[in-house]
């Protein structure tokens, strides 16, 4: 489907440079440990590593065997062990165990830990405590950014949301700032930076310090503007069911590091298939941003065209046939393959979504967004819980209810919580505690509302007791003010008009015309006004922390070059594919190009991924080991895909 947007979109910068930088640095680090060595790789680093280097690169630099970090005793016979890990205390503890076991066995080896993207003091403290400090050499691999697509760069830090917005640990703020600094020094200088949210502000500040410490640069900017936004500015959008194609694929099959595992039901063979999803996939590129209702039509049209193209070969003479085979056939076959894959995926999506009452679910979500028929919504959620339909989905609906309504009535909270615990297990008491702490699912305070209290607190800044008060309510949670924001920003279009999803008129199309994603709306408004002027009421409702600053880069700022229309949006805490689609739409309409910098491996914070998936558990032996992850010697353990906030996987309900 053709979009009639502005035709003069600027060119995106070439991000493959980032991959090269990362690869070169890794090679350099590997060479720091000369001689043959075994390399242990943290599980969630394997896919990112695959994207920038391959096995032969590693082999060239004397990596002998590859292992996945599994927190078990190791069987390596090499005299040199290299560990490529995230700075996580548990992983470092395991390495200490390995080193200490060697010591006890009187075995001498050299150990090297490469932390990526940076080391933490806490990890080094573990080495010290365990008595292996000094036996182990430490390096940092500044692999901050992985370009996943022409316009998506990821930091691949799945713990960002949880650490920052649940635990209140700011360890990744500097990482975010360094990533921004890397982009600034390669594709900058930036001329304007906007932001909203506490974490964004801190990121900006740390980044600014790095800029001041570093060299001033004068090269031609490729990225002009930057927008930093905290995930908790808009928690509503990631709680809504996704209905654009890419979002649906992610909801159902889970896109990890730009790849998706299509199961046997999609590939219509007995094997699952790992597929890269990006703009290189011509079929996918055309449907990724489409509302799902348009996808079938598009695919069948495409299939017909393909048929016609194949049919051309009938009645060809030998010579024509030869040109056909050499010039067209390969492309057609490729297209054929992709087409059948996406048709398979669409069918599978349809099957799964019609099995449950998807329409009713969407209706409930839309009612919640509109603030309409809340009692009906609650009883729908209740029924959902009673019937033990997806645990995550029930939770998602509960959170959406809480955020849109500024908390649940105490009576409802109690009843829904106890029904939830009955259906999915009492241990989810812990899940509820987490959700309350992060502000996703809260009980309305009886009597004096939070706002009144907070405004009082605001005046008593120097009072220690006041600080305690806010903390007592909710450490990081904020009042969402969704209804007021929705009205101010006009997020819910009037429902009496027909919304033609084929010709979307605004970003609401990504939610069937029912809701404009708040995050994207805020970005649109700020870019339009070149700042927050006129949005004072909105920022107040968003709990402040807005900023907009202009850099003093001289000429570069004044020249209205294309770079000024390249906007880098950094979601601190992750974003959904739906939001990316909305930004792409906005870009087409306004002649911007957005580069999205989500911060999670799978881009999505919420809805949290479902617990253990069967597809995660099946590891097929690869035919020819070409990828790093295939070369892992030991079979990986069952990776449980737990959501950030879910405490533990639920036992599978017995269905005798």
């Amino acid at each position, binding site marked *: 489907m053709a979009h009639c947007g502005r035709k003069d979109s600027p060119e995106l910068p070439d991000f493959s440079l980032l991959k090269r930088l990362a690869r070169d640095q890794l090679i350099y680090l590997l060479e720091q440990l000369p001689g043959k060595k075994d390399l242990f790789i943290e599980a969630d680093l394997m896919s990112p590593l695959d994207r920038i280097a391959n096995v032969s690169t590693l082999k060239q630099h004397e990596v002998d065997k590859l292992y996945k970090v599994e927190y078990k005793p190791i069987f390596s016979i090499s005299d040199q062990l290299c560990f490529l890990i995230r700075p996580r205390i548990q992983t470092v503890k395991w390495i200490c165990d390995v080193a200490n076991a060697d010591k006890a066995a009187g075995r001498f080896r050299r150990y090297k830990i490469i932390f990526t993207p940076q080391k933490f003091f806490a990890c080094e403290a573990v080495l010290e405590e365990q008595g292996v400090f000094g036996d182990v050499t430490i390096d940092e691999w500044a692999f901050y950014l992985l370009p996943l697509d022409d316009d998506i760069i990821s930091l691949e830090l799945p713990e960002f949301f949880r650490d920052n917005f649940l635990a209140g640990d*700011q360890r990744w703020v500097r990482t975010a700032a360094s990533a921004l600094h890397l982009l600034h020094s390669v594709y900058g200088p930036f001329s304007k930076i906007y932001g909203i949210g*506490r974490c964004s502000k801190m990121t900006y500040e740390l980044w600014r310090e790095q*800029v001041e410490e570093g060299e001033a640069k004068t090269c031609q900017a490729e990225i002009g503007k930057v927008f930093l936004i905290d995930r908790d500015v808009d928690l509503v959008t990631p709680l809504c069911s996704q209905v654009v194609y890419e979002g649906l694929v992610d909801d159902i099959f889970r896109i990890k590091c730009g790849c998706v595992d299509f199961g046997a039901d999609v590939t219509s063979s007995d094997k699952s298939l790992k597929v890269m999803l990006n703009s290189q996939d011509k079929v996918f590129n055309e449907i990724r941003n489409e509302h799902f209702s348009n996808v079938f039509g598009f695919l069948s049209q495409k299939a017909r065209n393909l048929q016609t193209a194949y049919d051309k070969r009938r009645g060809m003479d030998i010579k024509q046939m030869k040109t056909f085979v050499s010039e067209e056939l390969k492309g057609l076959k490729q297209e054929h393959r992709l087409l059948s894959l996406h048709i398979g995926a669409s069918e599978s999506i349809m099957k799964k979504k019609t099995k449950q009452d998807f329409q009713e679910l969407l209706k409930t979500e839309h009612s919640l967004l509109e603030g309409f028929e809340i009692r009906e919504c609650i009883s729908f959620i209740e*029924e959902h819980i009673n*019937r033990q339909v997806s645990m995550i989905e029930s939770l998602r609906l509960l959170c959406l209810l809480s955020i849109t309504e500024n908390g649940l009535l105490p009576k409802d909270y109690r009843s829904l919580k106890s029904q939830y615990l009955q259906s999915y297990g009492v*241990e989810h*008491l812990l899940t509820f505690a987490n959700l309350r702490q992060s502000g996703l699912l809260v009980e309305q305070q009886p009597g004096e509302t939070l706002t009144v209290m907070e405004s009082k607190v605001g005046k008593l*800044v120097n009072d*220690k007791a006041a600080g305690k008060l806010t903390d007592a309510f909710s450490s990081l949670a904020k009042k969402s003010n969704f209804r007021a924001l929705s009205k101010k920003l006009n997020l819910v279009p009037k429902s009496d008009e027909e919304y033609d999803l084929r010709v979307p008129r605004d970003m609401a199309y990504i939610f069937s015309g029912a809701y404009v994603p708040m995050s994207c709306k805020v970005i649109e408004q700020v870019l339009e006004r070149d700042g927050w002027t006129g949005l004072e009421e909105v920022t107040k409702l968003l709990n402040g922390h807005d900023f907009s600053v202009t850099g003093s880069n001289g000429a570069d700022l004044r020249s209205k070059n294309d770079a000024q229309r390249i906007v880098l949006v950094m979601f601190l805490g992750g974003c959904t594919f739906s939001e990316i689609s909305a930004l792409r739409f906005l870009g087409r309409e306004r002649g911007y190009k957005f580069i999205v910098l989500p911060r999670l491996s799978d881009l999505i914070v919420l809805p949290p991924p479902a617990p253990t998936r069967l597809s995660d558990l099946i590891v097929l032996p690869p035919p020819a080991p070409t990828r790093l992850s295939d070369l892992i010697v030991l079979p990986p353990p069952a990776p449980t895909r737990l959501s950030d906030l879910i405490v533990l996987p639920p036992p599978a309900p017995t269905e005798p």
Partner: protein
Amino acid sequence: MLCSCRIGNHVLNLLQLPGAIARPASVTEEEEDPLQPKMMKSKPDEEDYWNSSKFKAFTFDDEDDEFSRLKESKRAVNSIRGLVDEDEDEDDVEKVSWSGEPVGSISWSVGETAASNQRADREPAFPKINTDTQTTGKSHSGYSLSSLFKGKTRGGTFQTFTDSPSDSSARLYAPELRKPKSEYKDYVSDWSPEETVHRMQQGKTVSLEKFRSLQDKLLLLDFSVSAHDGNVITAILIYLKRTLSKEVLFRELESRQTALRHFIHYLSETRDQKLLLELLRSLGRTEDMVLLRYKEHLGIADENKRRDFLKSCLSLAFSPEDSAHVQDHFTLLERQIVIEAADGQAERGGKSEIFQKFPRRASILNMPLITTLYYCCFYHYHEPEGTFSGPLNIRHTFRISEKQFFVTALAARAKLKAWSDVDALFSCRNWLGFTKKKSPLSFHRVVDVLQKNSAPTQVLQEYVALVDDAHTRIALAQKLKCHDIVINTYRDLKDRKLLLGYRGKVEKGSSEETKIKELLENPQIRWKN
């Protein structure tokens, strides 16, 4: 957190005054005091000290790193003396540190000017914004210095700044404007708390050991918090944990929420459960504490041990509501253990027909309550209320709502295709003795459950007919091919057109077609179209 930010920014501002030397006064004083042994180190000692220092081995060797040193010198106005001298002449510094002689005044002042010029020359590329996240009035708010630096006054635990200007601990905070030159004789490595934090942010060598007074430690912590770098905050907390008693550390953390959150996160990551519990207790965060205790059960695999652990949790100070949930958790597991043992035996014994016919696929242990109820409705439906595994007993013990019970029983009995049980679930006799079908669940959901358990059309039809809303009813009936209901509904709606249209959808020559035909020919019906 409140006070820490203020301290940070305020001191920062003061330090940025051109020419201001921001070394804590007490440090210099201590040096002159021969009774302070720690500051009396000679250079070799100092080297030793560095080599044994905690953070030594994992930093870049900054002796080699002239370049970064240069860069650093640009920004660190408050460390002017040491750094600038180094830039000018390395030996000079050495000499100073060794002999304790005053810094050569010319080069020193030249250096200082150069440094402050550098500072002024270089306009920041981007403006600084207020990242102070909780306070609204910032450093220029006219607070007295004492209130800023103390952050809190705890019944005179600390003397205030203004009260006792001679008090050395208070003077620690005082930003010195300029000291007599003879006093500058400490080492390059004598970083102020702020510089230390800054160096840590860059991953450079630092020694925290010299921050021994509580005030120094807290200053260090507060600077790290205002620098927003969680990594550094945690590093300093680790040092504080090692060098402060729990009581003092906990007390100080209470008013520093950001640092506190980092500490809690660090303790949970290192799985220092004991200290974490103590911390939460001292903070009075009972709810967090009991949940943390309760969480331990997840790590217990053996069901009997887990049950016993849950039993021990019953005495914890949960909120009344959560207390009931935990009680349920315990009761449920206790019961599951009994049921599992009995059913396992029955299954192995091979005497029970139901287990033969539908062998169990998984153990019932640790399953949610509703799954357990489903299980009991499946295997133990007709047991009397007195037994542990009887569904009614479970319903009463765990106060399961009527609707919830109904949904679960319906699904279980439908799965077994025990249609008479299904029927009985709905039937209630009114006082006249007539039976009437009633459901706490809307009938279209009932149909949904039945259909998913592949109920025959015969059964489905009965329930589709009970759906209230005509449109939903027709839609359901069409989907499930309950033709009679469609036909009857159209008849009741007196919609001839639709009925006519439906004729094409039923099989030719079937009884349905005949029925439609009869209806259409019936002269007594007054069609609306």
